[in-house]
């Protein structure tokens, strides 16, 4: 079989993807079948690492990661949709540019931003210290608790939800909205029947992007949560560092990839982007 000109041109990219993307993934998958606490690819394949995971308590960490990610995505949707809607309706074509301003914090390391929140929330810190000195209020700190972790996740992943949502809402043509009003639709009907469905590509992309990022989150639980919650990424980190059980860490990573992959595929089946975008 002879390759077309296009096929030949794609060879460098295909090679790059194989070496840079597929090979590391395959290495992780293969390593997950190596004997526990070994450092070689050459051992006899075993399911022992997976057995350890299913017999142990790693499910707690998986459940934490999933719950935190779902909660963060739901809160982000509630926060970001009105903001994105307001940006588009008030600033029109400038909305996307303004949304870029929300990405400025991304230029600062996530850990530094989270430590900033620690200083803000800590006992006698910026918030509680001010309330105490100005109003004599002595409140308990929420630092090192579940709400602090969720706050951190919403804060960190906000730009990743806001940007696609703004894009999605800006794709709704004003003419369609005007036509619906002309035909007697109420404000709620216009939102429900026209604006929301037409902005769904942006909403779905925002959901997927933030979910995938949030399920891999670790810093929020460590820095703001004080490890009161152990997400699955933390279990993976421990396996690769203190435990030096790389095959177990690889097996946990493979399971996380599988869980995320299945959930994303299910979501894409339910919300077909091509249908939303009117390609079929």
């Amino acid at each position, binding site marked *: 079989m002879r390759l077309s000109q296009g096929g030949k041109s794609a060879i460098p990219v295909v090679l790059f993807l194989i070496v840079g993307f597929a090979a590391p993934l395959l290495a992780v998958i293969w390593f997950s079948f190596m004997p526990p606490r070994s450092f070689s690819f050459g051992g006899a394949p075993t399911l022992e690492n997976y057995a350890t995971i299913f017999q142990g308590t790693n499910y*707690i960490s998986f459940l934490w990661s999933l719950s935190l990610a779902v909660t963060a995505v739901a809160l982000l949707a509630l926060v970001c949709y009105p903001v994105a809607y307001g940006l588009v309706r008030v600033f029109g074509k400038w909305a996307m540019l303004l949304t870029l301003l929300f990405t400025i914090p991304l230029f600062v390391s996530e850990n530094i931003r989270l430590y900033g929140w620690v200083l803000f929330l800590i006992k*006698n810190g910026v918030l509680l210290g001010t309330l105490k000195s100005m109003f004599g209020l002595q409140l308990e700190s929420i630092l090192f608790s579940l709400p602090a972790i969720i706050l951190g996740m919403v804060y960190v992943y906000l730009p990743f939800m806001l940007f696609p949502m703004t894009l999605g809402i800006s794709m709704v043509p004003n003419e369609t909205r005007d036509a619906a009003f002309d035909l007697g639709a109420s404000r709620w009907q216009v939102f429900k029947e026209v604006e929301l469905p037409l902005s769904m590509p942006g909403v779905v992309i925002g959901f997927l992007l933030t979910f995938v990022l949030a399920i891999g989150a670790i810093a929020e639980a*460590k820095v703001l949560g004080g490890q009161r919650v152990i997400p699955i990424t933390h279990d993976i980190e421990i396996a690769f560092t203190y435990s030096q059980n790389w095959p177990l860490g690889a097996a946990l990573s493979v399971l996380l990839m599988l869980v995320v992959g299945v959930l994303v595929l299910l979501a894409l089946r339910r919300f077909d982007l091509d249908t939303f975008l009117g390609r079929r």
Partner: protein
Amino acid sequence: MANSSKISRRNFMQQSALWAAAFAGAGSVLPGQAFAAREKELNILCWEGYNSAQVLDPFRTSKGATVKAESLTNDPTMINRLRAGETNVWDLINVNNPWARKVMHPEKLIKPLDRGRFEPFFGSMMPEFKAPYKWAMDEAGAELLGMAQRFGPYSYVVNTDKISRAAAEDQGWNLWNDPANAGKYGILESDDWNVFNICLIAGFDPFKVHSDDEVAKFTETAKRVFKGAKVVGDIATMNQSLIAGEIDFHMTGGTYSASPARADGHPEIRGITPKSGPMAGGKGGVAWIEITSTVNNPELSPLAADFLEYVQAPDIAHTVAFAEGTFNPVAQMGNPDCFKLFTAEQLDAIQWDSLAEEMGRCAEYDIVPDYDKLLDIMSAAKREASAG
């Protein structure tokens, strides 16, 4: 498939290192020059401090060398990187005391030093480091395996405004057995040391093989201790939480972790060594001593030995003690020329007033034979505590 068995992580790391070196070399040399010779290159795998510009820059300048230092915060990871094939990448490895003589030398991961060149330096160190210093020697006492420098007691830290030094020393590890203290303490994210501490809280020596009863006690203690913790985090989080009043005390800790807060004007943050405990001689504290060794690199840089010599100089040893990150006593403080460089504030930051007394109450860091099992139990306890 015949080839697949030859592909190992060992090979992969070696190949990666070669390619990385090739790219680095290609980028740094002029056309026509050969690969950068190892005479001008030094790679150090270490705890933080040795990778700081204050320590490395004068050496780089004086030797015109490219010095790369990577800092990690646990010994097993560093040693496993050598095991995984990075012996041809690194020239020096800086880890805690037992690893050189008990693991790295028997596994041929490090090379002995020239005794004639290096042993005299032990003569000007503090008295407990006089040659032949146990942790710097191989098991047979014939080979010098590394040089000692930073050390310190490392048990727990209290805010003395909340718990007096005397009370904390007297109560010892029972601080964690008192139900009234639940929610008042933190745990430093230093899991290898936390395994030692859970053993000590449970009332037995960490550095031995444990019976089934002891493992059961360890499991119960780990669950209780992690459930009662207000926060688990890094050194900055522990110090900040102590100062802000979120917690009253934390384990693991000592001079190494408390010194940055003390140097920053918080003398109430103090490393504590318990007066008694379940280890030989009734000792309750654990101390660490860093040993820096030359890696068994087939092309070991000659700068490795030069660097070991360089950090023995009084001014550089003082810089190492107060390099960025954490502040620690150094064995070279036995040399009056080095000691006089420390200001009163610096001596207070490293708790010089009680150092000898605390070291006397400490067993020296050793390898826990059933560490893997205990760590897995402790990790599960931490996870279960997070389930509420």
